[in-house]
Each structure stands twice: as structure tokens, then as C-alpha cells.
């Protein structure tokens, strides 16, 4: 296929867009602008300052002429008019679709994140059959009609039995060819992300927003690095339960906090569905760090050391600042779980910290 001349201009445009997104990445990371805009493979991003400024009329010019029924005071359509001040052009913001992969790449480049090395034997090899060859023998259901026909036709023409006025083609055994397949092995790495969140009374809407943003970017980056990825969500206060994504970000409970309950639920989930030999496992826990008792915190550390850390790629603990509570859990972790490379903690006090938090989690390429 030939390439259109405009492909170069288009490429250049995409390049400029990416540059702008990169420039503004910190802003995108810290603002919720991108949430809810993601489609299946692409995300619609508002990019500023792309279009070319002109001298133009200002806002006291929002008027126009339209046609149709209506009496004075009625609303006009969608408000999009022929008027020069309307919504025709130049709001100075352009919505562009960017693939999630591209976005993750920009994130990776800007934060200088290394590509993740899937652990050990977790490269499952998947097998697929591809019909790519032709054979002389095979089942009738796989007969390649076109080729068979062509061979028969050629044979008949060569042997002089072909009559153009009554074109009747009769296959013989030697004409028949069949499709054949090859088995293709392709390495595939799967990963599961388990998000855990503390939904106790001290986690307010503001904290949840932080979690949501952080989770979005964690998702984006991990998806870029693994082909098959699954996300699971666990919420907890004093008890833990698995929920779906929607509920995860919406749910609000009162009551205390027992972090070990979440760890236990995660462990059970992993044991039942995601064996460590087959899956790259990522656990993220979000909390304001206000665990109910010292003894539970110690219990958590023990569970991490003995049951969780040995089998997971990464355990990320992200502590969001809250107006209530001690926020002591992060200190407990630092104190009691030492020497574990795959335990990474970060504090997020406000939206600006998300940038660094993401960087902390993934800068080792685990």
C-alpha cells in the first residue's frame, strides 16, 4: 500500500501532541482531567495551546442567525451557531485521541521508568494454530477451493478437455489441495493487579480521589508492560471484601480499620486464582495509615514477610494524608519489614505527589 503524502504532516502533528502531553504530564497526573475519558484503547486528552492564535473577536459577540421555528426566548439548538464568536474554533483547547499505550510510553519516558522485567518462569507460552500452508492431503472440510479449481482448470486446458462454451470443471484427486496449519508458540506474560483500599471513616472523598488518580496511572503503566492483565479490587475496614471497580471507588464505610483483613483477603484471592508460577502479581494498598491496633499492624508485617512478599513482584503501599489519625502504618512497615526489595512505600499528601509516587513504585522495573 502506498503512503499518503499527508502521513508525514500527520506524524509531525502526533509528535507535537505527544510533546505537549509530556510537558503537561505533571499536570495531567495531578488533575482528574483524564479520568472517565478512557475508551477501550484510546483516551481523549485536552491539549492546550496547539492551535495558532489570530486577532479575533471577543466574547461580546455571541450572536447569530438561525432558521426554524421558535419564539423569542426559546433555546437555539445546541448553541452552536454560525456566529463568529460561537463555538466554531479556537477555544484554544484541542481534544485528541491518544492510545493508552502511547500515553503509558510518554509516562515511562518522562518519569524515566525502566521496562518491567517479568519474573522468572512466568512467561507462559501460548499456542495457537495458524492456517498458513498448503498440503496435498487433508480433510475435505479444509479443501482450498480456489486453488483446487485453478489446478483443475489448468489441467483441463492443457489436456484439451476444456470447452469454453460449456465450462465444466471436474476435480480429480490430484487437483485437490488442502489448507494446513502450523502451531505458533508465542510467549505471553500475564499479570494481576490487586488494589486494596481502606474505606474506613477517616478516608474521605479527597483521599479517594487521590487513590483513583494513582490507580489510573498504575493501571496505564502496567498494562503497557504486560499483555494480559487483570485487575481485582478489595475494600476493607475491619473486614475485607472483594468488590468491582465501580464500587471500589465509590464505596464509603464508617468504622475502624484492620489492615490485616485486607491482606488476608488478598492472600486468599491469590491462592484461589492466581498462582505465583503463572502470574506476575502486583499488590497495591491505599490507606491513611491509621490502623486500629498495634497488634494488628504487627500481624500485618508478619503476613507480609511470610506469606505475601515472597510470591509477589511488587507490594506497593501508598499512604494518603488524612486529617484524622496517626498515619503510623508506614512507619511500622519501615521498622518491621526490612530488606524486602519488593515492598515499596510512598506518601501522597496531595495531588502533586502522585508524580513522584508513581516514579517511586516503578523506578526499579519490578
Amino acid at each position: 500500500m502506498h503512503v499518503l503524502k499527508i502521513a508525514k504532516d500527520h506524524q509531525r502533528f502526533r509528535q507535537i501532541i505527544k510533546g505537549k502531553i509530556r510537558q503537561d504530564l505533571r499536570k495531567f497526573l495531578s488533575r482528574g482531567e483524564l479520568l472517565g475519558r478512557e475508551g477501550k484503547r484510546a483516551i481523549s486528552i485536552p491539549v492546550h495551546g496547539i492551535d495558532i492564535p489570530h486577532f479575533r473577536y471577543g466574547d461580546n459577540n455571541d450572536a447569530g442567525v438561525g432558521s426554524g421555528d421558535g419564539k423569542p426566548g426559546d433555546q437555539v439548538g445546541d448553541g452552536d451557531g454560525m456566529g463568529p464568536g460561537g463555538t466554531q474554533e479556537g477555544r484554544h483547547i484541542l481534544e485528541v485521541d491518544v492510545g493508552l499505550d502511547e500515553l503509558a510510553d510518554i509516562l515511562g519516558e518522562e518519569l524515566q521508568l525502566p521496562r518491567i522485567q517479568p519474573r522468572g518462569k512466568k512467561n507462559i507460552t501460548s499456542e495457537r494454530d495458524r492456517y498458513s500452508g498448503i498440503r496435498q492431503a487433508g480433510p475435505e472440510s479444509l479443501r482450498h477451493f480456489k486453488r483446487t479449481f485453478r489446478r483443475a482448470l489448468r489441467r483441463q486446458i492443457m489436456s484439451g478437455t476444456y470447452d469454453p462454451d460449456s465450462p465444466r470443471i471436474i476435480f480429480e484427486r490430484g487437483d485437490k489441495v488442502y489448507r494446513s496449519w502450523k502451531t505458533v508458540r508465542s510467549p505471553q506474560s500475564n499479570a494481576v493487579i490487586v488494589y486494596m483500599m481502606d474505606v474506613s471513616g477517616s478516608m474521605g472523598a479527597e483521599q479517594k480521589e487521590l487513590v483513583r488518580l494513582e490507580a489510573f496511572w498504575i493501571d496505564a503503566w502496567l498494562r503497557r508492560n504486560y499483555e494480559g492483565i487483570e485487575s481485582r479490587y478489595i475494600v476493607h475496614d475491619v473486614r475485607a471484601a472483594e468488590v468491582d471497580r465501580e464500587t471500589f471507588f465509590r464505596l464509603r464505610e464508617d468504622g475502624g480499620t484492620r489492615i490485616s483483613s485486607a491482606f488476608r483477603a488478598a492472600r486468599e484471592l491469590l491462592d484461589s486464582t492466581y498462582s505465583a508460577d503463572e502470574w506476575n502479581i502486583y499488590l497495591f494498598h491505599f490507606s491513611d495509615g491509621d490502623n486500629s491496633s498495634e497488634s494488628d499492624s504487627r500481624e500485618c508485617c508478619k503476613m507480609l514477610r511470610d506469606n505475601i512478599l515472597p510470591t509477589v513482584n511488587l507490594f506497593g503501599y501508598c499512604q494518603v494524608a488524612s486529617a484524622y489519625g496517626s498515619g503510623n502504618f508506614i512507619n511500622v512497615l519501615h521498622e518491621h519489614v526490612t530488606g524486602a526489595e519488593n515492598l515499596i512505600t510512598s506518601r501522597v499528601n496531595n495531588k502533586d505527589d502522585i508524580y513522584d509516587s508513581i516514579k517511586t513504585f516503578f523506578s526499579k522495573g519490578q
Partner: protein
Amino acid sequence: MVRKLPKDLEEQARIIAEFARREGLDFYPTIFEVLSAEEVSQVAAYGGFPQRYPHWRFGMEYERLRKQHSYGLGRIYEMVINNDPCYAYLLEDNTLTDQKTVMAHVYGHCDFFKNNIWFSRTNRRMMDDMANHATRVRRYIKRYGLDRVETFIDTCLSLEDLIDPHSMFMQRTETRGAQHIRRQAGDAGPEQHAGVRYPAKSYMDPFINPRRRLDAERQAQLEEAERRRGRVPAKPLRDVLQFLMEFAPLQDWEADILSIIREEAYYFAPQGQTKIMNEGWASYWHSTLMTNYILKADELITYCDHHSGTLASSPGRLNPYKVGIELFRDIERRWNTGRYGPEYDACDDMQTRRNWGKDQAPKTRVVGRGSPGREKIYQVRAIYNDVTFLDEFLTPEFIEDQNLFHYRYDPSTGRMVVVNRDFRKIKQQMLFMLTNHARPYIYVLDGNYRNRGELYLGHRHNGVDLDIKFAQETLKALQAIWKRPVHIRALIDDEPILFSYDGEQSAQQHIDDALPEPANDL
């Protein structure tokens, strides 16, 4: 990318052209090419041309068109280039009925390009020149690097609409270079201050051009010239790009790129000036040709469907195709029935008006210029542009027929709401939207402001303020070319404000007596 026109379409083109000529259309030879949807999007992004200089903005437009096409939100049926010969593009997967309609439509456009006076000064070899522009810009990119050239093009594009579309019809002022050459040759040039001489037979001359008046005029002109001496520019100048090319400290390649942008802006200007007329005229003729000559019974539904789709208007949007075709038909009807002139205007009996000249109207189908109405619309297509077209032919009856209304942004509800159906208000609004392409009038007032080589522009206010943010951004582009500080004077909320950019920061100040005046005033 060009595919030869299939035999059947070629035959259709020939037949349709013949019918079009029979109806009196007069066009350059027209070459049709069939393109795929991607290619049509490319051509549309390039403003109708098969190639342009490299720039990301075309890529942006291409992406927008592709998306629009794939979501089924808009389909480009046809593209046509004002060139001799005319080039027109057909979309490959259109039905034959569509292709025929498009061809008939295209011949309408081609006739308009050739015969409308506003197109008379356009470059009819633009197809070749666009390719040359592309080559030149590519060469500069190779030599000076993409970033530098691209940044400069961005800067120029920011100013591309600062041209004077009417200047195409004026005697160009002599460039400094030409002046220099003329003086070197010892030629004093045409006598400049001679007063206005009206043409007259020799024996009448002393009466028509009396000496006393000529002397007085010469004197006044000399005084004016004296006052203007040393002013740059001598008069307020709308063609800012021309001024920059002459006086801005540009390198050769920069001047060349600026001239390319300016040339293309002038080429496209008449299309902006005649959008309603041009589309109206083409629609009038595709409709006439299709229904009178070309349509077969089994094509009728498809044709009607697409024709009405093209002419559909939504409440908040005036469709130029619709306004144009209806106005042309209205003019034809009015001139066929004699509904114009002082007698008709003076008549205020509705019944009489409604039946005015009904018996004069042609009883049979008219071919070509065979009726006063047709004669009139042929004249209109030759000498009007959108502004004069609406100014002259928009009538209260037309506005009522077309159900037009005037709407306005209502700050209390944040919505666009219908204001009324007042004829004068609607006409005024439409004319405003068409005048200067709904862009503000900007003039160079002083190229040596405060004797510091600063550039001073002025906005001629006609009811609507400049957008401040955009003005400040645009000043930055201007400064990048002028290098010295730049200013623009504008009326914001009835206060005269001077916006400035000196290369480092933007500023704005209230204009009062303490501030030096520019060399010219509007």
C-alpha cells in the same frame, strides 16, 4: 494517487458538461479524478490541493476529517480547485447518482470561479504554484532545519489573515526596489499631485476641469503629502503582511516563506468572500441540471435524499448552500415577475404585492438566459460577493419564507436564545458575520512609533471588541517577525487600550493624552 476516470464516468462528465453549456454556464476545462476516502480527506486537509508545503496543521485537519468520516458525521462528496483547468475530485465509493450530482455541482463552481469578478485576480495556475511552494519550503527545511522553519511558519500563520482582499483590485503601491530603479533611470515617475481630471472632450475640458479647482486640489494634495512625509506607512495599511515583507528585518528564506503564506491567503480570500454565493450557484445548477436533464426514474429517491441532506439546516446553523440557492431562486422569481424597483417597493398592499406580475412569469421551462430572472442571476453571479449579495437582495419576505431568526447568548441562562425575527436585525447580523470573514479589521498605523522603530497597529472597532487573550498571543507572533516592540490599539469596553509585547513580557495600558500618538489615525 490519481486514478483515471472510469469510462462510464468520463462519458457522464461529457454529457453533463454539454447540458451545462446549453444552460449558459461557461467554465474552464474540468478534470475529474476519483479518489478513495483517505485520499479525499488528504486533499480536503490540504485545502483542495494534491500537495502543500509540509506543516503539522494539515495533519491535524486530516485527523479531524478522518475521525469525522469514520464516525459518519460528515462526508466529503466533492472537492474542486479554482484553477485553469479546474480540478475536481470524486469520492470512489459514491453511487453513480451521487457522482452525477457532484459533477453538475462542480460545473456550477467552475463557472463561478471563471466569471465572478472577485476571482478575476486569483492565480489560475495555483495547482503548480502550490507544488512550487512545497518544494521551496522543503528546501528551506533541509537547509535550516525543521524546527526553525516550522516555528517561523507557525508565526506567519498567526498573521495570515492580516491582508487586504480588496487590494487585488488596486494599483499596487510602488515597492522601494522599483522606486529605486526608476529614480536611477532618471524617471521622475507619473506626476503625483495633479488633482482629479475627469475625461472630457477638448473643447469642454476648461469647463469640466476648471483650472481653479485643479489648482486648489493640487495645493491640497501637496499639503497632504507634506504632512505625510516621513510617515511610514503613508496611510493606514490593511495589508500588514505586505508591510512586514517590506520593512521587517527578515532573512531571505523568511521573507520567501512569508510571501508564500501571503500569496496563498490572497488566493483563498475570494472563496471566503463568496461562500454563500458560490455554493448557492453550484446547488442551483446541480438541481436544475439533474431534474431537467439527467435524472433517471430509479435515481430519483437517492438524488432527493442527498440533495435535501446537503441543503438541510439545523436551527442554530445557517447552511450557506440553502441560503444561497434560495436567494438565487428568489432573485430569479422577483425579476421574472418584475417585483423590484420603486413602484413595487412603494406598494404596501399585501394582496397586490403577492400577485405582482404573476402573469409575466414564464409559462414554460426556461433554458439559459431566456428570461429576465435568469438574465439577472447571471449578472449577480458575475459582479457580487456575499456581502453585497445579501445587502442587496435580502428581503423581509425572504426572511419570513426561510423562517430566519436572530439569536444571542443569554448570560443569565448560559444558552443561546432566539431574540426575534426582526428583518433589520437579522440582516445586520448576517452582514456582520460575512464582513471580512468575521475577523476584525487591523491596520498598520505606524512603523516607527515614538521614533524607536516600534510597530503600532490599530483595530477599527465596529461594535465588537477584540479578544484580549488572543490579541496578546498574536502580538507575540508579530514581535517574532518585527523584532522590536509591537503594539495594538483596541477599544475594550469603550476604553482605548494599548496592548504591547516587547519580546519578554506582555503589557497593556490605558491610552491617554500622555501617550505619544502614532503617525496615522483611523
